[in-house]
């Protein structure tokens, strides 16, 4: 896949021109243009090669482009969401080289050569990933905005427990096992403003195959 003909930079420049051309009716209109990034010393575009959901893609990116913006604005994989853009909400969670990270807090150029899995790569409406199915069955969302991040995070959480990686909720650092308390602690980097948390825990417990929990029907 080639890079977008309209880059992020030219888009910013275009909107700066548009903002400047607007009649000034007060500070509220004038202010956004003055806050746009400086276009002095224009950034050198850099080649970035990623394997996204099993597909190799080649991009030319401003080094400032976050992995999140590369996925959404350049590859049009808009399943990954931009919430806070500061690593606080987890809506942008993707799996890079097998590990979940906040895609908003890393630069795409830092991931040249990396393999990335987004919500689109976990499953499709026709072939749902078990975690996607469990979120539907257990109603693990309301508005759905945080859901792709929740699901990517949840898939990685079960891998982390399986790999014996301890958490703050682990009583004995050498005995890592699934529990609701482990899920709540490990999912704390994914905020849900609709507060679907109890149902999210149900969905993850279901996929983990815990017998003492409520099972999918």
């Amino acid at each position: 896949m080639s890079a977008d003909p309209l880059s992020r930079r030219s888009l910013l420049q275009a909107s700066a021109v548009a903002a400047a051309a607007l009649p000034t009716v007060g500070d509220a209109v004038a202010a956004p243009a003055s806050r746009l990034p400086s276009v002095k010393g224009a950034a050198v575009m850099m080649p970035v090669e990623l394997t996204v959901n099993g597909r190799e893609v080649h991009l030319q990116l401003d080094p400032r482009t976050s992995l999140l913006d590369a996925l959404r604005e350049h590859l049009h994989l808009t399943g990954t969401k931009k919430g806070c853009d500061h690593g606080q909400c987890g809506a942008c969670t993707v799996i890079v080289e097998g590990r979940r990270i906040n895609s908003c807090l890393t630069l795409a150029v830092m991931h040249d050569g990396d393999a990335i899995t987004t919500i689109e790569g976990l499953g499709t409406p026709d072939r749902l990933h078990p975690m996607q199915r469990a979120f539907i069955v257990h109603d693990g969302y309301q508005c759905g905005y945080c859901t792709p991040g929740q699901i990517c995070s949840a898939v990685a959480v079960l891998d982390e427990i399986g790999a014996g990686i301890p958490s703050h909720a682990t009583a004995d650092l050498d005995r890592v096992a699934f529990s609701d308390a482990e899920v709540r602690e490990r999912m704390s980097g994914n905020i849900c403003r609709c507060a679907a948390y109890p149902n999210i825990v149900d969905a993850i417990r279901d996929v983990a195959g815990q017998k003492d929990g409520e099972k999918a029907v």
Partner: protein
Amino acid sequence: MRPFTYTRAASVEEAARAAATQGARFIAGGTNLLDLMKLQIETPTHLIDVNHLGLDRIEKTDEGGLRIGALVRNTDLAADKAVRRDYAVLSRALLAGASGQLRNKATTAGNLLQRTRCPYFYDTRMPCNKRKPGSGCGAIKGVSRSLAILGTSEACIAQHPSDMAVALRLLDAGVETVGADGGRRTIPIADFHQLPGDTPHIEHALKPGELITAVTLPKPIGGTHVYRKVRDRASYAFALVSVAAVFGPDGKGRFAFGGIGAKPWRVAEADAAAAKGAAAVAEAALNGAKPTAQNAFKRDLTARTLASIYRQKEG
């Protein structure tokens, strides 16, 4: 975010040399630096990516301790078998910090260098001597509930945010570096973080271009390891107060504190008071505290956290 150029360093020496130029910064995990760059609190003109320098191993030292590569991710350090067994306080401190996503990215060296979460440092409309030297401190007479009560100055009351660094302070870690001239040295963790004084923008002992290559731990000290963090939420929040402690079988103990100091806080007098109990340790640790009206509660909270740890140890 301001424009910058980006390169991947091919060697430690090359990275240190390149970083000595004005406006250059290392980037590793990026979880703190990129956040600050988005807010234009940090405005580097050149980023040197050090992620591919092979500094991601944990190995035994000749002295029987551990050498932790600068790029070892927080997740991997906390989960490392030798760390879990011999330095459990470090595992516990790491696991008490940030979120799973952030720990997967954040590095050992980056965690040591993370910057304060003082709200006045983050708000570019506010005065802040750390962000803009000479502009004043908005926090001292402002909203200061989360801020430091020890090691502060007239210029700055920002708290050090790290959990990991508190455990490293307790364990007498060393910080190994390579300078821009290629010279290598080890900085004791006690000398690594600087008190604000009248230069709160200077936070550590690193020289321009100096790159952290590893953190070393002395041989294991045994004992019972505890890290207790008190915060506003049960998870994913910075400490109001945290206490790292190791208790020996002989009534001896050592203590380091987070959330209350301008740097990871440890005083010899608190360690010396270990056998006398929690109240004596608290009194020694809090000697010289200068709280504001809003964060004076941290004195009591520190004492109570220590009392809780002692009860847990004896229970």
